[in-house]
């Protein structure tokens, strides 16, 4: 009797696991994507010449629609027209003002000033739209206002704030555009709501709500404009477990929100782009067909016209998509 009871009890977790797997497959099979990505252009090749990239990552648009690219391994920022033509580049390897070690993200405020986060140098530098150095802030450390790997940037134009995802400090910090620390969003941790595990990117929707690519919790999290936790998606019910099925993520490293509040995610280790509704419902996903590792999106941005741009870092190019809602 006891032995039989033990066998039944021992098999229960397996039973529930199988139910979970079957439920997931049925959800996948029954889901219909109410939108789709359409690849419309690919910009850039490998190299150091103007318009070429070496591990491009951060992407941002200025009010005129020009695209800024953090050309990470080339230690520079490139500015392109909205159609991909090269305009200018600035920066060189180094630690002085206007120099970069690994620029990994870029953001542009309403006045056209360009903010660049540097992974190795733990600082944010600010430039004019023509690349003239203005100022910087940040230093290495774990205390509030210090960085251990400055990663994703996003600007809330209405509140004149800039948010920084800090990879190793496992938090997001909100600053004024002058670099004054305002508050912290999230706290280091796994699985629990509001806990961040190596966040890589941050985005702001039109209402000022904050979205975090909580990369190694394999999920996205949503906070109010004051940093209070609201919601989480992915990570298998938010538990932080990586998965490849629709609606779940494996190291989502880039996030952007369009004017309609739709959320675009570079689900990097799944090698795909994902579009979500403002409530987190999957609208569409895109990867190469058949899925291969020839697409490795790290960052994503949306322009004023609704086009989606993904930095395909491993292949030194930027992919341009249109999103069509059905």
């Amino acid at each position, binding site marked *: 009797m006891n032995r039989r009871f033990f066998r039944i009890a021992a098999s229960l977790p397996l039973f529930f696991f199988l139910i979970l797997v079957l439920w997931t497959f049925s959800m996948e099979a029954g889901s219909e994507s109410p939108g789709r990505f359409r690849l419309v252009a690919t910009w850039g090749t490998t190299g150091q010449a103007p318009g070429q990239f070496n*591990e491009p990552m951060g992407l941002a648009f200025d009010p005129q629609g020009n695209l800024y690219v953090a050309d990470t391994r080339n230690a520079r920022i490139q500015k392109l027209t909205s159609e991909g033509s090269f305009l200018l580049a600035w920066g060189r390897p180094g630690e002085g003002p206007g120099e970069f070690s690994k620029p990994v993200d870029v953001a542009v405020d309403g006045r056209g000033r360009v903010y660049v986060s540097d*992974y*190795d140098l733990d600082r944010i530098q600010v430039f004019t739209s023509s690349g003239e150095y203005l100022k910087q802030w940040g230093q290495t450390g774990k205390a509030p206002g210090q960085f251990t790997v400055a990663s994703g940037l996003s600007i809330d134009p209405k509140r004149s704030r800039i948010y920084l995802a800090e990879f190793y400090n496992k938090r997001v910090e909100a600053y004024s555009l002058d670099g004054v620390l305002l508050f912290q969003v999230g706290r280091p941790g796994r699985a629990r709501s509001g806990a961040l595990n190596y966040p890589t990117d941050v985005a702001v929707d039109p209402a000022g709500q904050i979205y975090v690519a909580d990369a190694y919790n394999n999920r996205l999290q949503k906070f109010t404009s004051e940093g209070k936790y609201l919601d989480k998606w992915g990570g298998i019910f938010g538990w932080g477990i990586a998965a490849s099925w629709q609606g779940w993520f494996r*190291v989502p*490293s880039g996030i952007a929100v369009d004017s309609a509040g739709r959320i675009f995610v570079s689900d990097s*280790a799944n090698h795909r782009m994902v579009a979500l509704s403002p409530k987190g419902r999957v609208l569409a996903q895109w990867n190469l067909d058949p899925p291969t*590792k020839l697409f*490795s999106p790290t960052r994503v941005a949306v322009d004023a016209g609704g086009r989606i741009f993904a930095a395909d*870092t491993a292949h030194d190019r930027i992919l341009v998509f249109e999103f069509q809602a059905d």
Partner: protein
Amino acid sequence: MKTITFLVLTVMTIWFVASAADAKVISPSAEKGENKVYIRADGLACYFCAYGLERFFKQSGRIAWYDMNMKEGVVEVGFIKGKPILPIETINQYVYDAGFSPREVRAEFVGRLTRASDGTYRFEVTETAQSFPVEANAVVKESQEILNQKIILIAGTKKDSTAPMRLVPEQIVPWRSKP
């Protein structure tokens, strides 16, 4: 029951197999030395992690180049000519500090294998004059004819249970005839 367990384990294995992106070689301007180390780590799945490991190695001030292959979950680092090679404990600590679990380290060092009167062996790194004991395994014992000559020592280790990592000679070849 065994069939169910097998199926579940198979599904879980497929589920958790890491996938990662391609990467490329980088070559900073420092003069490259002859010594290099290859590291395989769990969790090396995106550029942000790979850059983290690179950052630790760069901060050591001893690394000339760093090559990452996220598809395979490996990085390879080359030491600056004349700079001391990093102890394996330090390399492991970098891997842990960067957020990964080290699984395998393989070193390729250029130097001389010597034998002391008590029968123990040491390896002297040519570029740095560092010296460390070498396990007298079969590979070492079969290399008596090239003792005190310039050679390439290829040593590797894998993480097994709780035992600390240590480098074990796997291959010894005359210098300039790399395998």
